[in-house]
């Protein structure tokens, strides 16, 4: 067992966990934050993406112990009051059908928008599709997700 302490969605948390606990298991099973999903369990689908120290990472592909001391943001922690602008954009653009991949899509989306805006780069449709390489959706065919991210990106600029 290893004691891990980290900040999740602004709240300090601490627990004694077996060393082989994945970050996603810790988030879902210990903290009961079940918005972060496990889709493939083989590090390909991106449903488990969270932000660790401000960067998008697959929480199924890192140990909770390795996130000791980190600041973690999950889908539950991105909205201030109502919905985050990216969540609104997914809703308005019908960027989801079953919704299983959506938390990971939104965490990847907000990460890419932040990076592109910080670097002063234009987030083109091609760039969005390239950046979504690690997120799999089996319903939508991606078109509305790409539209939603472009819309969300413009809302994040104006926000």
């Amino acid at each position, binding site marked *: 067992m*290893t004691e891990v302490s980290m900040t999740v969605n602004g709240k300090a948390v601490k627990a004694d966990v077996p*060393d*082989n606990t994945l970050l996603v298991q810790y988030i879902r099973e210990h903290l009961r934050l079940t918005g972060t999903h496990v889709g493939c369990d083989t590090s390909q689908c991106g449903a488990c993406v969270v932000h660790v120290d401000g960067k998008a990472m697959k929480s199924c592909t890192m140990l909770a112990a390795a996130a000791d001391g980190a600041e973690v943001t999950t889908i539950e922690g991105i909205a201030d009051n109502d919905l985050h602008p990216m969540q609104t954009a997914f809703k308005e653009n019908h960027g989801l059908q079953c919704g299983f991949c959506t938390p990971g899509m939104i965490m990847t989306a907000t990460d890419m928008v932040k990076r592109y805006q910080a670097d002063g780069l234009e987030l083109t449709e091609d760039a969005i599709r390239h950046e979504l390489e690690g*997120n799999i959706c089996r319903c939508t065919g991606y078109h509305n997700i790409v539209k939603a991210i472009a819309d969300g990106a413009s809302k994040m600029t104006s926000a």
Partner: protein
Amino acid sequence: MYETKYHKASSVADAVSLIGKSDDGKLLSGGQTLVPTMKARLAAPSDLVDVSGIADMHGVSISGSTVTIGAATTHADVAGNADLQAKCGGVACLAAGIGDPAVRHKGTIGGSIANNDPAADYPAAMLALGATIKTNAREIAADDFFVGMFETALEDDEVIVSVSFDAPAKAAYAKFPNPASRYAMVGVFAAQTADGARVAVTGAGSDGVYRQSDMEAALDGDWSPDVLSGVQVGSEGLLSDIHGDATYRANLVKVMARRAVAGCA
């Protein structure tokens, strides 16, 4: 995942000591290959020694024409380094094409070359650039480092600290990614170095990364994509699997090499 004991190393010396004391330990860097392998129960190290937090093993530094990259530097940090983009864009561009954004935020150059996956991208760059791999104990030339599929010259408790290479006059990487896994079906890194042209191929060889010496000789005479048309790439020793047979890969080696040379800046 089987049980394991996690250790966070505070320094290179600490990592060497922890791995030495372990029963059947493994070094953990970004873990983007090791963690999935452990989840699939294909690896069951008794101990994991996490080197990702060791400050000395991070960052890209350029001194004169020598580029040094710390072993725990993530693909995203290599890809986004403005100095490296100016000095050796081929390496930055290669890093930007590994996996996906989340993988690039975590995976590291040291982990990639220590694992020496036959379809990994970095080994091709290291070999084509004639890089030197620096460990806690010694310096190993890339030509001696990559021994075979998933095999390197590293000893069990040896820790890669950094890699360094002389910035080439020109270099570029071209890969044909597997449409599903995004690993290289074939990737070719071509570099015009002080020692002449060097061409390294990943994804194709059944012994892992290798140099295509006939292409190097041709490029030494005339650095142009067209000169490669005259080079015959045989299929002996190349991988055959459900994604493509050896003849298909042999052709891809040629096409990717042409694209790499054409893309050289």
